[in-house]
């Protein structure tokens, strides 16, 4: 039940966003502030629950890299 699917925001209008899930485009309710066109968001049960950040993604990659001791 806690599955959430990442998709790319095509447009934002009012409380809703149009989100592209690999070609399948669905409306989703915005429960996350600051969402804009081009953002990658997580959608659960028709609701945008999180905006995914490139900076945080980079930090995750560094975490992996650090743990592996630069072996990657």
């Amino acid at each position, binding site marked *: *039940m806690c599955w959430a699917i990442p998709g790319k925001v095509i447009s934002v209008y009012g409380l809703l966003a149009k989100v592209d899930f690999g070609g399948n485009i669905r409306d989703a309710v915005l429960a*996350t502030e600051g969402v804009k066109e081009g953002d990658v968001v*997580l959608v659960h049960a028709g609701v945008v*629950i999180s905006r995914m950040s490139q900076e945080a993604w*980079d930090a*995750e*990659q560094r*975490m992996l890299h650090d743990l592996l001791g630069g072996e990657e």
Partner: protein
Amino acid sequence: MLKGKPGLRKGLAGEYRPDPRTVRSLKEKIFSYALNLENVKIMNFCGTHEWTTVHYGLRSLMPENVELIAGPGCPVCITPSYAVESAIALSIEGFKVYTYGDAYKLPALNATKGAKSLEEAKAEGGSISIVYSFLDALKDAKGESGEKIFFGLGFETTAPSYAIPISCKMVPKNLYFLSALRRTPPAANFALDKVGLVSGIIAPGHVSTITGARPWKTIGDRHSLPVVISGFEPLDVLLSIAIILRMLARRESGLKIEYKRAVNFKGNLMALNYIRKVFNEDDASWRGIGLIPKSGFELRDEFKHLDAYDRFSIKKTWSYDIPNRCRCAEITLGMDKPTNCTYYMKACTPESPIGPCMVSSEGTCAIWARFGGGGLAEELARELGMM
């Protein structure tokens, strides 16, 4: 960013299904951190983590002294039988009941008007509609006459999908909300107190997009455990395990966020505001477990006119609601394994479930049944000479 890797927008799945060398390197790290540790038990609190663990055979990559345990992470499994029985009764009385596909086959303890699940209720002439979201139910109910019920299961991840339309007064007057919404941190505390001897926690990533990391830090501090909030790709889970083992090897406790791309410390403030506006935290029953203080969400007085419990005089009276000899209660708390249940894959299968853990795609028994969590991956690996 790692050399040669595309960024977030170019494809998430590709990033987390990397070449086998990364997984081998992580496996070596896991073995190296675990080398001088006593028996380690790492508990997850999300059915999707259990799904990733079993689907990708991650248990077969663990050293002998590292055990991965599934905790209470499936909202369908812990929905009390009285709520299922109420939904069945209402549907057979002619009220349309909306719910998710995961709850459709969920067996109640007792038959109600000849039906033990909403699926059976439909066969008995009950009115049931499976929807993807609460919003779909709103649209449908608006166009129809007659009173209807939304059987609303879920954890914090799902709560905003109810709270926003309720708060924004989008719910038609003929639709009532039957809440089986539950909060995960109180159940995590309960499970850790009950099970004991857990060495580390993989905390739920999507719940944490809403709650933030804060409640999991409190849990880690209270139990002096390493806690890692993890994403759901196999590499996420392996990395989280490695981080927990490294913390244990260094005798550290506390919180780390592995799923940084979606989770922050404070949580989703907009979603939390909606949830607080619409719901009170209340003492709630969990199937097979009983009452856990402050572990549920009930509608605030301002929205009580939408409450199915009030409208249909449904009592939240819990008594032990697991069938005889079914081990779902112990499995949900991480105290037992599906393969130790006498019903598992004999009388109880995903096609014909007896216990609630055999229904949902996040139920431990259902996951093990579908992907061989009872050691099938290890058996196959041995046969192929990989172990």
